[in-house]
């Protein structure tokens, strides 16, 4: 498997079929005298920001901090929890358990205050 081609940037779907985001980072573990192993996947705007440029990462972290979100908020999915790697990455986790939906849930609560709405 080519990690960059087959895993990075792919959509992640939880065990209920709900979108969790995209694979923004892959966590590798380096071991003495052995090839690195894949520990898991990371999802989160700060992870994506750091991948683009450290400054972009810090800007995203600051925005999250000002918005009251935990700093370096990233959802990590252990490699063992990956169920299937296809067009989507299916994982044995639920969006509510991981905190991937924290912004979505917060905005939903806020939007509930607006009248009308489909």
């Amino acid at each position, binding site marked *: 498997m080519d990690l*960059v081609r087959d895993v990075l940037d*792919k*959509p992640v779907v939880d065990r209920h079929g709900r979108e969790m985001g995209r694979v923004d980072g892959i966590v590798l573990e380096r071991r003495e005298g052995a090839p690195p192993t894949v520990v898991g996947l990371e*999802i989160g705007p700060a992870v994506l920001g750091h991948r*683009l440029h450290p400054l972009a990462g810090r800007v995203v972290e600051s925005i999250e901090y000002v918005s009251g979100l935990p700093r370096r908020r990233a959802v990590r999915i252990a490699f063992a929890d990956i169920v299937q790697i296809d067009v989507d990455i299916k994982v044995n986790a639920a969006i509510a358990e991981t905190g991937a939906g924290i912004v979505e849930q917060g*905005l*939903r609560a*806020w939007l509930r205050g607006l009248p*009308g709405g*489909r």
Partner: protein
Amino acid sequence: MSAIFDLVLGIVTSIGGFVEVGSISTAAQAGAEFEFELLWAIAAATVMVAMLVEMSGRLAAVGRRTVAGAIRERFGIHFQILPLCAELLLDVLLLAAEIGGAAIALTLISGVGFVWWILPVGAVVWILLWTCGFAVLEDGIGLLGLVTLAFVVAAWRLEPAPAALGAGLLPTVPDHDGVRYAFLAVSIIGATVSPYLLNFYASGTIEEKLTEKELWVNRTTAFVGMGFGSVVSMGVLVTAAMVLAPKHIHVDSYEQAALMFVPPFGRWAVGLFAAALGVGCLGAAVEIALNAGYTLAQVFGWTWGANRPRRDAARFSVAFTLILLIAVAIALLGFDPLRLTMISLALTVIILPALVLPFIVLMNDEQYLKQHTSGVAGNVFLAVLTVLSALFALVVVPLEIFGG
């Protein structure tokens, strides 16, 4: 029967949704300054956009992927980030221009300055986005957009010589203002091959649950809908050529463009022009704002969809709302909408290569398209278009400076 109904509706709404601020302004300027000589540019741009739209729809119907989502997956965020930022900037500018265009339409009817209409137009766009599902947004506004057929009726009433129209479909060397001619030709392509249109169409294909078995619907809608839609753009050019060119009136504002309806429609001229401009711009504004939400949600993996309750796709809803607010703020600054349109079109042409190039890879990816990958003709078209779009991107800024 349902597929036939969807097909007819798709074609009709494509016609109604084809004309907006960019196509009206470029076609009117082209007709007023070069008579029928730039008809070929509309025809060529229509072939380009129809091919790209068909490919976007095929990618979505077979691979369940939109253009923005597939580019993130196949090329990664490092490739996508700059075109994405440029496209969002373009969406904001074009959205401000469309809101300005709709506001000017209301000014033509009411006499009240267009800046006063910006907030009401922005509010109407948001209310439509907040309350309507995809079918109402796409089909309802597309059907209302049939009022733009007034341009075709106007051209038909003016009885242009068929031989002259035919001659205009072949590129020629102009006998005056060659730089301006080239600038308008490139601007017509920028106005027609809008980046937002491709991702919007792909997103709509997923929203409407079009499947691999209905690829013929996608193909027919793309080619027939866009083909007939371009007739409306040609109607704008022909009407401007028949009415404005003989009087040497250049289109420096939408108020001047409205004069083209006086000979064919008399006292109905201003009202009909305002209706065509207003509905065309309003429809495009809804599509651009929605597409900005689609694009951000698809790139970052958020829940999206105009058919979902808005609160169930909260980041998507907030994204299109914020883009709309920024565009309204820009429009409120009182920039001339026509000038804003021409700047947006130049930016469109600059980012065109980054838009077209990924299609070569995506349309040959069997993981997405299975047995429906591009054939030789499709690949040759994409290769030629990539080279042409790179050439256009190189020349558009000098052309804007010297011919804009």
